[in-house]
């Protein structure tokens, strides 16, 4: 027992050493823009399980809305493109630590997130917001039907906050990726699955033969932006300008139609500055 105690203390001490490591998140004063151009490469975080934003096709290639936008950004900045896998749990730590330069995920712009990262201008909007997938004929149509039911969501997603606020009596089943949530629903481990509209649409598309349906959209405006590191206006502006040009040249619309099979929402536009 004596030996045990001594070694545990040392283990704790080693742990403590970690906290004394020199910390400098805000490196020098250089903007990422300069770093990226010097490096010759931009590292973009994209999802791999969120069709049509990002997924992996049968041949192992990454495809999606985010990938195409990433290519445009790399071309505009005249650097090479390096893609990095991200998901709702890793994207902010990666921005904070400099692992990626920009994240093009379907990330909602929220105040809480703005405390630690900066957002570009919104690059996607939908009005339908979130929806739920339930078994056909289920009584669940909206937040008020969720009392005591189990809802499958992803760790770190806004869904958790939304459900906690609007349906505090619902039980949460927190998994690590979307398809896992659908599998949970299939297996009866959850009564409903909560995800963004386009994800729901895609999942239903893939499972047309099965016994599922989607609830009506929960009608919340969702503005989605790209994430960059905090307090780096030069870098953020650089990306904003690329988005601005994409919209102006209508290239954005082309890319959008390719992945969403429809035009951008009539109320959505990427701000256009005249000069």
């Amino acid at each position: 027992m004596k030996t045990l105690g001594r070694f545990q203390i040392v283990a704790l001490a080693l742990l403590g050493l970690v906290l004394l490591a020199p910390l400098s998140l805000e490196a020098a004063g250089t903007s990422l823009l300069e770093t990226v151009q010097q490096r010759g490469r931009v590292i973009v975080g994209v999802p791999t399980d969120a069709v049509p934003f990002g997924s992996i096709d049968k041949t192992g290639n990454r495809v999606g809305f985010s990938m195409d936008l990433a290519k445009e950004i790399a071309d505009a900045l005249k650097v090479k493109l390096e893609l990095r896998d991200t998901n709702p749990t890793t994207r902010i730590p990666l921005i904070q630590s400099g692992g990626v330069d920009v994240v093009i995920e379907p990330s909602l712009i929220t105040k809480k997130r703005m405390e630690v990262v900066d957002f570009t201008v919104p690059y996607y909007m939908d009005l339908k917001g979130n929806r739920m997938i339930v078994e056909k004929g289920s009584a669940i149509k909206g937040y008020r039907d969720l009392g005591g039911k189990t809802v499958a969501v992803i760790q770190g997603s806004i869904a958790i906050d939304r459900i906690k606020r609007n349906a505090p009596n619902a039980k949460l089943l927190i998994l690590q990726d979307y398809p896992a949530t659908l599998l949970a629903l299939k297996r009866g481990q959850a009564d409903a699955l909560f995800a963004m509209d386009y994800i729901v649409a895609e999942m239903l598309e893939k499972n047309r033969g099965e016994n599922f349906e989607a609830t009506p959209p929960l009608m919340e405006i969702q503005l989605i932006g790209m994430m960059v590191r905090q307090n780096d206006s030069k870098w953020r502006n650089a990306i904003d300008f690329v988005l601005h040009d994409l919209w102006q040249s209508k290239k954005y619309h082309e890319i959008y139609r390719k992945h969403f099979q429809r035009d951008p929402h009539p109320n959505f536009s990427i701000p256009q500055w005249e000069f």
Partner: protein
Amino acid sequence: MEFKWSVVFEYRDILLLGIVRTAEIFAVSTVLSLLLGTLIGMLRTSQKLLLRQLGGLYVEVFRNIPVLIQMMFFYFAIGLHSFWAAVIGLSLYTGGYIAETVRSVITAVARGQKEAALASGLSTLQAHGSIVLPQAFMYAIPPLTTELLNILKNSSVAMVVGVQDLTFTAREIETATFRGVEAAATVTVLYIALSAVIIGSVGILERILGVRAKLGERGRRSEIEE
């Protein structure tokens, strides 16, 4: 970079929940894998070849497949609830290791048994009680301690199938507050504490049984795995 340790206090509720959940997985898996492992271990030392082979098959299969895959199988393929998928996967996995420990204990003790019987005129019952059993525990305790610690560590894999254990909690605090270092450090300390409790409890068990386990090379042979 400053540390904001107050988040640890703010999130003490879910930290506590994480500890409880981890403890639950640990407790149930320990019981199940001990039962299963003892059973298979006895099969492995049976007189009948078929039983020995069946036991051997079990051990080979369940020790060589990653515990994550086993949990995923029970959750995604079979459709059990998160907790049970995790527990059953973990128990089947650990059971294989415990079976091997039980087997070597039984073998070692069988030897000792023979020697004891030959050496003195003790009745079989006396021989079992005062010589065989304490010896059995003496051999079994160090590898069992390692297996218990492995159960604790492998319980963290349960988060992949939706169990909100302590490791899940570390990620949860981090995604909610973006305070990664504070969350990870706190949870690691908690794991060290839990392992100390396990090691300490085994020590108490040794004391109760009046046995001092030999921490020689035999004990350390089945060292840290996974």
